[in-house]
């Protein structure tokens, strides 16, 4: 392998970390981008559940929006969960500039985007960003639903919340009035959009340091025992039923696009409460033919783009079940609603 970024592996590494590959080099072939996202990190956020308990959350901040978390700060603050979305248009040259101070290592992997090795955010094949800024350069060719997440000690860092939505919008279809929204080029139109990143939380994991287990020792990263089941950062026990960032309110005649992201590690099944979804794309690629279904079984990191056109007014409860990866037992459920007025 020709791309090992540094000598930080083996027994060394920063702090107590092993098999990490620190670096923040210049971007090969750097050009002026069409769009720039500046991401810092936060390591001391929190999420409060409906039962009153909280866990520590880590994530990415938007430095351009004045969020803290730049490499110059201590990055010990909080931030939004999930991390701020990255939204681009197909064909744009995109920069995602990640700043991490020397206390930590993180990367951004734009999941489903397929760039060069240097820009893929996989530390052991390139570098883990620390003590500076690395600018990921990429140009998405396929509209659709993706997500971005950290790829350092990934079981832990993704579980801790280091992910956000990544949406690639299509180029405008000729003849479309301004403001027309489509799932992909010349694809189905929609009026209302929901991004449902469904995830499970094991509070025991949320007390670990960022490098946990990398030098060996049993820190339990093989054994996920989730107690909370969330949709886009909101507790699916009851809050997600009404939280306006998750629950859908639309009017009869409108078309809904649900971007369903399996953001956890265990298999899931999303059921649309009696509504039929026309699944038009998955993993950022249009399906050869739309698939009409009332439910989708998915595993970690799969995405499904679902067009829903209710034919009457009413309220439908959407249910996401989470299954144990070995036994198949239902471990928990998250719920939200589609209300058509």
């Amino acid at each position: 392998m020709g791309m090992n970024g540094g000598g930080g592996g083996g027994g060394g590494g920063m702090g107590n970390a092993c098999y990490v590959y620190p670096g923040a080099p210049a971007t090969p072939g750097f050009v002026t981008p069409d769009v720039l996202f500046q991401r810092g990190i936060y390591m001391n956020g929190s999420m409060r559940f409906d039962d009153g308990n909280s866990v520590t959350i880590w994530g990415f901040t938007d430095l351009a929006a004045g969020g803290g978390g730049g490499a110059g700060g201590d990055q010990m603050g909080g931030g939004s969960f999930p991390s701020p979305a990255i939204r681009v248009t197909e064909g744009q040259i995109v920069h995602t500039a990640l700043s991490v101070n020397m206390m930590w290592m993180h990367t951004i992997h734009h999941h489903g985007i397929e760039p060069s090795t240097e820009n893929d955010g996989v530390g052991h094949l390139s570098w883990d960003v620390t003590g500076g800024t690395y600018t990921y350069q990429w140009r998405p060719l396929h509209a659709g639903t993706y997500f971005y997440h950290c790829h350092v000690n990934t079981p832990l860092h993704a579980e801790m919340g280091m992910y956000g939505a990544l949406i690639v919008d299509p180029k405008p279809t000729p003849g479309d009035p301004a403001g027309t929204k489509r799932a992909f080029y010349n694809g189905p139109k929609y009026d209302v959009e929901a991004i449902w990143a469904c995830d499970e939380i094991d509070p025991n994991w949320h007390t670990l340091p960022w490098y946990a287990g990398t030098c060996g020792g049993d820190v339990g990263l093989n054994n996920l025992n989730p107690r909370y089941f969330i949709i886009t950062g909101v507790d699916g026990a009851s809050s997600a039923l009404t939280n306006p960032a998750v629950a859908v309110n639309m009017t009869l005649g409108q078309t809904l696009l649900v971007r369903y992201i399996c953001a956890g590690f265990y298999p899931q099944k999303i059921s649309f409460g009696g509504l039929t979804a026309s699944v038009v794309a998955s993993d950022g690629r249009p399906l050869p033919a739309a698939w009409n279904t009332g439910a989708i079984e998915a595993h970690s990191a799969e995405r499904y783009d679902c067009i829903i056109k209710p034919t009457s007014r009413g309220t439908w409860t959407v249910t996401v079940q989470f299954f144990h990866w070995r036994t198949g037992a239902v471990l928990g459920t998250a719920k939200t609603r589609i209300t058509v007025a």
Partner: protein
Amino acid sequence: MERRGFLKAGTAGFASLVSGAGLLTWAPRSEAATISKTLYITAGTHTMPDGVSVYIKGFSDSSADLNVPATPIVCQEGDTLEITIINRLAVTHNFVIGGLKAGDPPLVSSGDIAGGGSKTITYTIPTGKAGSYLFYDNKTSYNVFLGLHGGLAIMPAGSSNQLYSGSPTFVKQLFWVFNDIDPALNSAVQHGTTVPTSFTPRYFTINGQTSLPPGAVGFDDPTRDAMANPETQLAGSVGDRTLIRMLNAGMCSHAVHTHANHMEWLTDRGTVRGSVWKKDVLYLRNQLGKIDAIYPFEAPPDAYPPVTTGHFPMHLHDEMSQTAGGGMYLFGAMTDIVFK
């Protein structure tokens, strides 16, 4: 106890994995043939990345080998499989070739093979059975998890580049056989104590190995590192469309995730999909789930400036599978995708 043929896996045990040309080689024949093979049920230990020694069993190429998974078998429709299984252990085992589709009866079953005994199965493959198969031991519900499993590819008669007659074509093919190891199970079998009723796997393998990151002992050693093993690694140049026959011998369902290219999803549990979806994650079920997909080896579409070379991972996205012994991220079921 099961001491006969007690072997130490490792460089020697896995040497046969890397003695071939790297990928499965296959030249179609115009006439059917008899494929004769002898498998030896052997046992021994395999050292996990954290140094823990785990007792495993395999369908091996000789009584001195311990092959987990077994060396793949490739044949074509119309061929006759003549497989002799020699049980070198003291307890009863068996050998079955699972059916093509979920719910199908096995293609063939040996019945009990007593300790020290042997059996020969003979099976002539009818037309319509082209596809990917797992052979395994189902004498107990857990023998398959100990390592008694392997892959069988039945090619369509006369074809070297199709999964089934009329399928999308490929130029190379390989197996990814996944397993999940709970050493408490293996230890109970080794010592004849009560087998647990619940398992928590601690090691996760692809073709019998884990990935080893830069800096680790054994890094880049094809006899140890799943990233470097040419029978596991997905290596090619642009255009080298590669069929991957994914077989889940383990306890857990998995999310198979490739970087750099989406996969063309051809089958799920032996059933041909109605249309080909392009996916960067495929849901590989447990309970002997399987998937066939083609990795197209197109230039990574989103690179700017464009590239045609690089290293990328295939890893399971259920990230617990990327650990060993409860930690050690990067020592799990992962391999290297090499754009040469």
